[in-house]
C-alpha cells in the first residue's frame, strides 16, 4: 500500500476526502484512478487530456519528481502538491 498525501485545495471539492490515505496501486496513474472511483471527478482536478498531470500539479514518489507512469513500491510515499502559483 502506498501512502498518498493530497493538497488542501482538494478537500472542499470532494466530500470526506482525507488529506492522507493508503492506496493499492502500481503507478501514479493507477492511484489517481482508484481515487477517482471513490470520488468521481477527482482525476480531472489532477490530470489534463493526454493524459498528463496538470501543469501546476506536482507529484513526488519517495521525494523524487514523478509522472503518471512512475511506478509505486509497496511502501512508497506519494505527495501530490499544488505548486506555488497564483496571487
Amino acid at each position: 500500500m502506498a501512502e498518498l498525501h493530497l493538497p488542501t485545495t482538494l478537500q472542499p471539492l470532494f466530500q470526506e476526502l482525507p488529506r492522507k490515505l493508503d492506496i493499492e496501486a502500481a503507478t501514479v496513474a493507477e492511484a489517481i484512478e482508484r481515487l477517482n472511483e471513490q470520488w468521481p471527478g477527482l482525476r480531472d482536478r489532477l490530470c489534463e487530456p493526454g493524459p498528463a498531470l496538470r501543469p501546476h500539479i506536482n507529484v513526488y514518489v519517495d521525494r523524487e519528481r514523478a509522472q503518471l507512469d512512475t511506478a509505486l513500491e509497496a511502501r512508497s510515499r506519494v505527495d501530490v502538491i499544488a505548486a506555488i502559483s497564483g496571487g
Partner: protein
Amino acid sequence: MSSTVLIVGTRKGCFVLESDADRRNWKMRGPFCNGWPIFNAVHDSESGAIYAAGASEWHGTGIWRSSDLGENWELSSEGLTYGDNGMKISKVHGLAAAHGRLLAGAEAAGLFESRDGGKTWALLSTLDGQPNRELWNDPANQPPGHLGMSAILPHPDDALRYWVIIQGHSIFETTDDGATWTPRNKGLRADWPLENPEVGYCVHKLVLAPSDHQRMYQQNHCGMHRSDDQGQSWVEISEGLPSDFGFAAAVHPHDKDTFYVIPLDPGHGRVMPEGHAAVWRTRDAGSTWQRLDRGLPERDAHLGVLREGMAIDDYDVPGLYFGTSTGQVFASNDEGESWSEIADYLPAISSVDVAVLA
C-alpha cells in the same frame, strides 16, 4: 414582494447580493466556489440555479452550480473536454441557460451543452470549416484574455437558434443547433487589414432587445453598432460617445431603442475616461447619447468594466448594475438616472448578472 438577486463573478470566487424590489439596501454573501477565479456567473431563470464558470490554476476548468442561491455548490467538468488527443480547455467564459439546457463556450474555441443541470457536458460544435478556423487555436492569433468562444446569445423563442462570439474573430449564427454556422459581421468596422472581410471583427458584447427580437446591439472593439434585422447587418452608432471602445452593454427590457454602454479608453488602460465614472444611454437607438453619472465617482476613479460586467433587471422601472475591475458594484434603481455603490473591496469583477425572483 419580489426579491432582486445579483450574481457577481470575481477573480476570487462568486458573490451573491440580495435586495427587495426597491433595490436600495443590499446584503452580500460569499465568497463562494472556494475562491476559484470565476470568468462568468449566471442565473438560470427556468431552474433557479446559479452557474459559475471557473478555472483554477491548479485544478483546471469546471462549472460550479448552486440550486439554492449560493448556499451549497457543486463542481463538474465531466464531459467538458476535447478528448485526450484534442485541444485543451483553459477556461469557459461563454455561459447561457435557455430552453431547458446550459450552453458553455470554451477556450480553445468550442461549444458544449448540458441537459442535466450542469452535472455532465457534451461537445456540440467546434465550428470546423468556418473562415479562418485554423487560426483560432494559435495563441499568436488570439487577443489578450484568450477567451475563445467568449459569449453565447440564445434566441428567446427558438432553442435551435443562437449566436456565438469567437473573441477577436466573429459573430456566428446557427439555426440548427450548431450543425451549420454563418458569420454575421456585415457592416462592422475593423481598424486592421482583413484578408477575408467575412470575419476578423472583434466583438465584445452582443445583446438582443427583449421587446423586439429583430433589434440587436453590440459593443465592438471598433465602435457601437445596432442591427434591425437580427444581426444580418450592422450600422455604427458611436457618434456622440466619448470613446468607441468598451466591453459591457445592456439593452432596456421594455424599450428596444434604449441601450446602455460604458465607454472606456481604448489603449492599455481600458478604464473610464479622465477618471470620471459614467454610463452612457441612448433612448433613440443610437442617434443621440446621454451621460449618466449622478452618484458615480467624479474624480480619480479609474474603473474598468469587462464584457459581462453590466446587467439590467426587468422591473417596470429597470435597475442597472455594473461591477468593476477594482471591486466595486454600482447600482441604479431608476434606469441609470442615479447610482449608488452597493459593494466595495471585492476582488476584480468579471461578471454581473441579475435575477428578479417572485
